[in-house]
């Protein structure tokens, strides 16, 4: 079991090791797992401060990911509250529509969205990416289960005290579902950070590239410098691992609950 785990991790160990050594040693066989000559500083310095502009890609990814996550949490939790705690005409029918759209693969809407984005000026902007990620339906499903499990008595007693839905939502229910919100926020963060397809289709300018696009362009350009490519890969993975290790319990819970990516 432990052995299998190590085999599973080998690609990552190899990646880390290759990112630390001079190019000439990358393909030495047998593999030098611990580099004999260290070139870590040079490798990482050229990735981060060379022509590759990794700092810019990082900043773009942070911006897009953070704003997408915020928007998505806001939109999804509001909808989850509305669909579970407010009675209004057409509620169930509307929820079925939302549920049905979840079956539509995002890929099926790429072409028309591209055309719509081109004609509305959202193409090649970060705002476009943020809106696309922010209105994903999955969050509504995940959070709905949590809102549904909260007793209506909270709402009723708050209503007697004269509180409206906005106050109830913000000051009573939102704090109660905080663990669920955290779970969804972490998942959304990881998915957005990792997303390659959406930026690839909806971005054109190199200065707007997110880390995934930048990483891909970097790998194409530096096809022969494997030590640099590995340093770039390590750089691309580290933030995800940090978020995952910090929010491990939440991620695992969220995956078990929601199961799919979206």
């Amino acid at each position: 079991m432990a052995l299998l785990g190590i085999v599973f991790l080998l690609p990552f160990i190899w990646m880390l090791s290759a990112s630390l050594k001079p190019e000439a040693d990358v393909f030495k066989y047998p593999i030098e797992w611990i580099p004999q000559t260290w070139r870590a500083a040079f490798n990482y310095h050229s990735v981060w401060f060379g022509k590759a502009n990794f700092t810019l890609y990082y900043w773009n990814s942070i911006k897009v990911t953070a704003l997408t996550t915020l928007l998505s949490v806001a939109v999804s939790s509001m909808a989850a509250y509305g669909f579970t705690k407010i009675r209004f005409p057409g509620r169930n029918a509307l929820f079925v529509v939302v549920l049905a759209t979840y079956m539509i693969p995002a890929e099926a809407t790429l072409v028309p969205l591209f055309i719509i984005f081109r004609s509305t000026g959202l193409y090649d902007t970060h705002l476009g990416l943020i809106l696309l990620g922010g209105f994903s339906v999955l969050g509504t499903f995940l959070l709905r289960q949590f809102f549904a499990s909260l007793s209506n008595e909270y709402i009723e007693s708050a209503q007697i005290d004269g509180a409206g839905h906005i106050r109830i939502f913000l000051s009573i229910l939102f704090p109660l579902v905080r663990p669920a919100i955290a779970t969804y926020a972490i998942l959304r963060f990881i998915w957005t950070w990792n997303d390659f397809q959406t930026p690839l289709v909806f971005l054109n300018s190199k200065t707007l590239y997110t880390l995934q696009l930048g990483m891909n362009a970097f790998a194409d350009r530096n096809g022969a410098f494997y030590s640099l490519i590995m340093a770039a890969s390590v750089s691309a993975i580290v933030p995800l691992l940090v978020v995952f290790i910090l929010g491990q319990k939440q991620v695992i819970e969220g995956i078990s609950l929601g199961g799919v990516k979206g």
Partner: protein
Amino acid sequence: MKTSVTLPQSHNKPTAGSRKRKRIEAGMGYFFTGPMLLGVLVFTLIPMIFSFMLSFTKWSFVTGFDKIRWSGLDNFRQLFQDEVFLKSLGNNFIMLLAVPVGMAIALILGVIITSHVYAPGAFKVIYFMPQISSVVAVAVVWQVLFHPSYGPVNGFLSALGVDNPPKWLADPTYALPSVMLLMIWIDLGVSLIIYIAGIKNIPADLYEAATIDGASKFAQFRSITFPLLTPTTFFLLVTGIIGNFKSFALVKVLTDGGPANSTSVVVYDMYQTAFVDLQTGYASSMVMILFVIVLAITGLQWLGQRYWVNY
């Protein structure tokens, strides 16, 4: 909402006040769900209808809306003679094999991890790493590992005495299996975690009773663990197959569909057709076929589940 004594208007005759209250309540409902409904409308429903219409046209978006030409079912007729598309579709179906194989490995690992606990938390993190890591970075790493002449994988094989190790991603015969191998490696963590959650839900007294009856570990697995996990298996199969059909990033970064279209899939072909060859209408008809296939597979599985899933 529960009717409650403290909200008398809900069971009295409607008065002007209660009607007003109801209107406010409805308004709040639309206020809270509105943003999501608007998003669904603008980013999914309208594009989907648009896509459906475009699939019956010969059009390239660069020429402007006035150049849209209705072409009926021409695109679909053409698709079934389009070798690249048929190859991509075929590849999609071959790739589906990665789903049950990955699930079987995940199930075995899940049983081992839950019954022989050394450090389940650590193992979850380890098996989850490929899933959490960026697809682009992971694909780039594997491109190097699989390098035909000096990649470590073939270095290892040569050291074992394999004379002509496969060229992996560069060889049309091995490229698709290599991609599938990576898919299993990437997705194993998710299935594993969901299986572990399922296994933990199985009541322990079932195993105790079976042990008293003298059932072997394998018999216990066959008649307790596996049958009780069928809902989990069903869930993983449905979501796995849908996810598999949508795989794009890995193919795009790892092989660009090559060599000789041996790893092309429908979504990749659609991307090329729409955004590289700029054939908007034709690409939309590919999307429609993909959509119908995903719906059909999901539908068939729902219908078939009562024959093997125990709830």
